């Protein structure tokens, strides 16, 4: 019997205590901020969208190997000495490898930051950008190469030509060495 009344008293008093707490919360400063008029400050270490600085990238593909989801596509072409177009890295050295294709697919990127830690020249870095939604999934593939496709084709052609030229020169040299070795023998044969 006494338990019955204790229950009633407990129910009413705990409900009242709860209501006092919510009443007090009506007058506390609210924590909402009005996005997009006010934005929250993002810390500098934030791992949001990636950015590649082309004048630091030397096409080593460390980022491609480090990425756990394979979202980076990298194609590079070795430079030839007879190329009139010259490019220099940020630290002043001359560029020896041309990056013809560098694409990051941000629909696949998981923002883990392993590529930024693997890059030896600090070319790929995280920015604090997070407002880049698109309606079309194709638009999320970001291209970072600064050679046009014609220039890329031209570079590949140059490399192919250079390789062929080198191969021909090698053959000629080998043939010249052979012919030098063979010549005295034919004279001897002739005199004999």
């Amino acid at each position, binding site marked *: 019997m006494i338990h019955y009344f204790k229950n009633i008293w407990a129910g009413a008093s705990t409900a009242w205590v709860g*209501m006092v707490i919510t009443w007090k919360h009506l007058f506390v400063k*609210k924590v909402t901020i009005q996005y997009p008029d006010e934005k929250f400050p993002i810390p500098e270490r934030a791992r949001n969208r990636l950015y590649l600085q082309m004048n630091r990238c030397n096409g080593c593909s460390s980022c491609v190997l480090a990425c756990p989801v394979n979202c980076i596509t990298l194609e590079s072409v070795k430079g030839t000495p007879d190329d009139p177009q010259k490019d220099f890295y940020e630290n002043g050295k001359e560029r020896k490898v041309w990056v013809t294709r560098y694409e990051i697919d941000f629909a696949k990127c998981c923002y883990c930051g392993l590529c930024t830690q693997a890059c030896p020249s600090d070319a790929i870095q995280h920015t604090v950008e997070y407002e880049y939604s698109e309606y079309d999934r194709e638009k999320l593939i970001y291209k970072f190469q600064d050679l046009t496709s014609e220039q890329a084709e031209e570079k590949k052609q140059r490399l192919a030509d250079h390789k062929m030229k080198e191969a021909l020169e090698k053959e000629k040299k080998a043939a010249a060495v052979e012919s030098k070795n063979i010549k005295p023998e034919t004279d001897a044969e002739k005199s004999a």
Partner: protein
Amino acid sequence: MENTNFLYELLGKNALSITLIVTLPLVFVLIYALIAILAELKVSAWIQERLGPMRTGPWGILQPIAEVVKLLQKEDITPDKANKLLYNLAPFVMFTGAYAAFAVIPFSERFVPADINVGLFYVFAIGSVGSLGIVMGGWASNNKYSLMGAMRSVAQIISYEIPAAMAILSIVVLASSMNLQEINSAQSGWFWNWYLFGGPGTIGKWWVIPFTVILAMIYFISSLAETNRVPFDIPEGESELVAGFHTEYGGIKFAMFFFAEYANMFVVAAILTTIFLGGWNSPFGDLMQGPIWGVFWFIFKGFLVVLVQIWIRWTLPRFRVDQLMYLGWKILLPISFVCFMAISLYVMLK
């Protein structure tokens, strides 16, 4: 009883004045529902330390209009296997049940749509039409979750009508009348004349005050159960039954259910105000008393009760069905009987 309605004196007893009398409370209910929706959103947000709707209009005051427009422009779907007639009628039946109670509620001393001698009896009788609407909605949807929700809701409403009726009956005994306008007039004067504090009388009434206070609380708790609000919102319990009896409703029919719930909230708040809190009387005696002040005081007190209902919703967890029944039948009912006996004793000895 002569009709204490200023419109009759103004325009005579013809079709025009009757139409006006019927539509004025309707206009009020619709405007009130919009304000109540906004109040619910804003108060709940402030309790939870956030701001609530802020974009629709300055400080979000146009949010209820946005919600109504959104609901009105939705496609009107009727499920294939549903009982078409009952399915379409259900929301309107529920709204009728809620709105019809406004016929006897006095807004001021010069405006009550129908001044009948059995006003309170009428209110309780017509309030059950609302639960009829819920059963129709749940059954006609042809969905086992809706049916479960509707059954629970009806069981809840019927169980909690009895303590509510006992509470009101005690006040009827105190006031010796069922006419709502008379009960209201009897509470004129300062606020200690309210039936919450034992009604008009001398200081000898002090020993009945605890009983009337307890009766007011019992009526308030029962009214929460009547309108399916937390902590009694098992019929709409989102965690369990998706959305209860209005699972299959969308668009304007859902808006009707929504409106009916808010209208119901005001009906029970209005009855609580009229009977316990002095209705259209000013709490300061003759200061700010009059036919027009009456409307202000009535709406003000009714809205305060609605705010307390909203406050409770965001504080307390939900009851389980059997605990709800236990509370209604085994706790509220015996206590209301005891209070009824005490008040009858007081009236006999007076």
